[in-house]
């Protein structure tokens, strides 16, 4: 199956700081999603981004499919951004392979 590696595994930010999370994958994909798992365990869709760049408020993501990586940018971080960010990829619709996640803690 497709291997998914996320870095860094842990990130501590002061409120207002910017950060970049990375997702590397081992094979061609046509499905890539970023999720945020809040401290209560709920997984929330952030982006569907198998290629290109998207922005949603303070979050943006870029996937370079030819080089098999995706980046998630968090700007002006807030305490509510704390949680685990997962990258999930798939070679086809319906089958997602998740990475191990990046644990983000934003301190006031």
């Amino acid at each position: 199956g497709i291997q998914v590696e996320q870095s860094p595994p842990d990130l501590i930010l002061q409120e207002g700081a910017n950060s970049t999370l990375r997702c590397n994958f081992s094979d061609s994909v046509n499905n890539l999603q970023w999720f945020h798992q809040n401290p209560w365990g709920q997984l929330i869709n952030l982006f569907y981004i198998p290629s290109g760049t998207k922005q949603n408020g303070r979050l943006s993501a870029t996937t370079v499919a030819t080089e098999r990586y995706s980046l998630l940018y968090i700007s002006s971080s807030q305490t509510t951004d704390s949680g685990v960010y997962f990258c999930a990829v798939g070679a086809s619709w319906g089958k997602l392979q998740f990475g191990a996640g990046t644990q983000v803690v934003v301190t006031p």
Partner: protein
Amino acid sequence: EAGVVQSPRYKIIEKKQPVAFWCNPISGHNTLYWYLQNLGQGPELLIRYENEEAVDDSQLPKDRFSAERLKGVDSTLKIQPAELGDSAVYLCASSLEGGLQFFGPGTRLTVL
């Protein structure tokens, strides 16, 4: 629009006991997934349904796990008998035609 509903949210049982989890997907979503999430790891797919048909159950430990999705809507995941190593969060997700997946809040299982 209501999201994916799961129950119970928490379950504590003794080993060798049976346990069942229930999932109600988003209305109209024909694809339903059950995932297992261990502490500190990402979710891992157990089984995927397209309507009533299980199209991918390769990761489901069939000696003790079973699932069903009668009428192509609600689904139940069962473990019998439960083992200590089954302690985890069981997540249900749904999507339309295998597209964007939306997750429920999960059931946290503790096996003593």
